[in-house]
């Protein structure tokens, strides 16, 4: 197996190669799914460092259990299920997510500053409007931390940009309709709370 794998090679082919002991093929599977795995873990544990550990553990577990994977579902779905179980175990152990989500001041890294600039469409935008938006987002972040876990998990997984509703349903063990309802309910709940805090839609 060469280090460079064509994108035409399917996950199924890579899984077969990995099951035969090809570590490079598994490495390609890691590369293809690393973001989805990491963000799934992030939705559960809320910390990038913890999510990184969970992702690594999930890949390692997948490698060890690969012989038992019979291809009845997609490898990605199977991998995400492993990841979600690991992440929930981690969350139950350390229970850190609420603190992090509720803390208004996250460490401002350079990436955070870049995100902030991205959201500003024009440099002419008034600075007070930016500050107001930041304040609102801080409050939203705090309120997300107060959501019931089922709703919060669905909202964050749906907002990760990496998972389809079907995959989220597989991870959460819920039908797609239920996942969609949870996302909508989480948003409704957030809006109600924000309205109670004096933030109304324009």
């Amino acid at each position, binding site marked *: 197996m060469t280090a460079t794998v064509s994108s035409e090679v399917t996950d199924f082919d890579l899984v077969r190669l990995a099951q035969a002991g090809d*570590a490079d093929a*598994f*490495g390609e599977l*890691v*590369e293809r799914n*690393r*973001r989805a795995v*990491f*963000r799934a873990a*992030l*939705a559960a544990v*809320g910390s*990038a460092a913890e*999510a*990184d550990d969970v*992702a*690594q553990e999930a*890949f*390692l577990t997948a*490698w*060890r259990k690969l012989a038992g994977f019979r291809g009845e579902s997609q490898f990605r779905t199977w991998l995400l299920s492993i990841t979600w179980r690991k992440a929930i175990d981690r969350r139950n152990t350390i229970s850190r997510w609420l603190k992090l*989500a509720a803390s208004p001041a996250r460490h401002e890294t350079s*990436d*955070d500053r870049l*995100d902030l600039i*991205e*959201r*500003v*469409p024009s440099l002419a*935008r008034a600075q007070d*409007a930016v500050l107001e*938006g930041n304040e*609102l*987002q801080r409050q*939203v*972040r705090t309120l*997300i931390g107060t959501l019931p876990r089922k709703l919060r998990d669905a*909202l*964050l997984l*749906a*907002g*990760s*940009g*990496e*998972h*389809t*509703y079907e995959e989220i349903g597989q991870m959460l063990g819920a039908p797609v309709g239920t996942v969609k309802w949870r996302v909508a309910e989480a*948003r409704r709940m*957030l*809006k109600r709370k*924000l*309205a109670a805090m004096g*933030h*109304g*839609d*324009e």
Partner: protein
Amino acid sequence: MSNHDFEGHAMRPIRSIDDSIDATVRDLMHVDPRPGLRRRVLSTLDAPVRKGSWMPWLLAPAGALAAVLLAVALLDNSTHAPVPVTGVMTSGITAPSAVAVRRPAVKPARTRDTPAQSPKRGPVATPASIFGQRSDRVSAASVRFRSNEVRPADMGEPAASPDTAHGALMAPSALVIPALDIQPLHLPALSPRR
């Protein structure tokens, strides 16, 4: 890849609550793993399966077992410790006054001298059966005082009133038991009818 309402908000200004929610979720979730995840994973593939140490699993039950054994040993010691007699009538006869004794509502405070458990008492004499098989125990109901004998009330013991019975227990001064004349119990009214 995804199919959500969260896409496409990156370049839009935050105008509404919905936009703010989307932007916040995006901030929280659009984070990438640290570089080198593939390398880190591949470097651990051949690592032996890390099994949890058996020590924590063994220490917990061992500690619990030790605590139980210690508690049993302490209880055993306190049971066999010499028990000072404090206000307990130790006469072999259960006097009528003692039968009517009610325990005080307030327990006396425990001190180091008092045992954790109440002292063991001897078998309580019960009235013998009037239908036969009399035992050799003296029943309180079968004790009769003769007119020339000293009754317990005459010896300074309180009467068998529930109100004063507690006082009798609190001052068990030298108890002199008079000679008893034990008569066979004969209660015609209670005899079985034929």
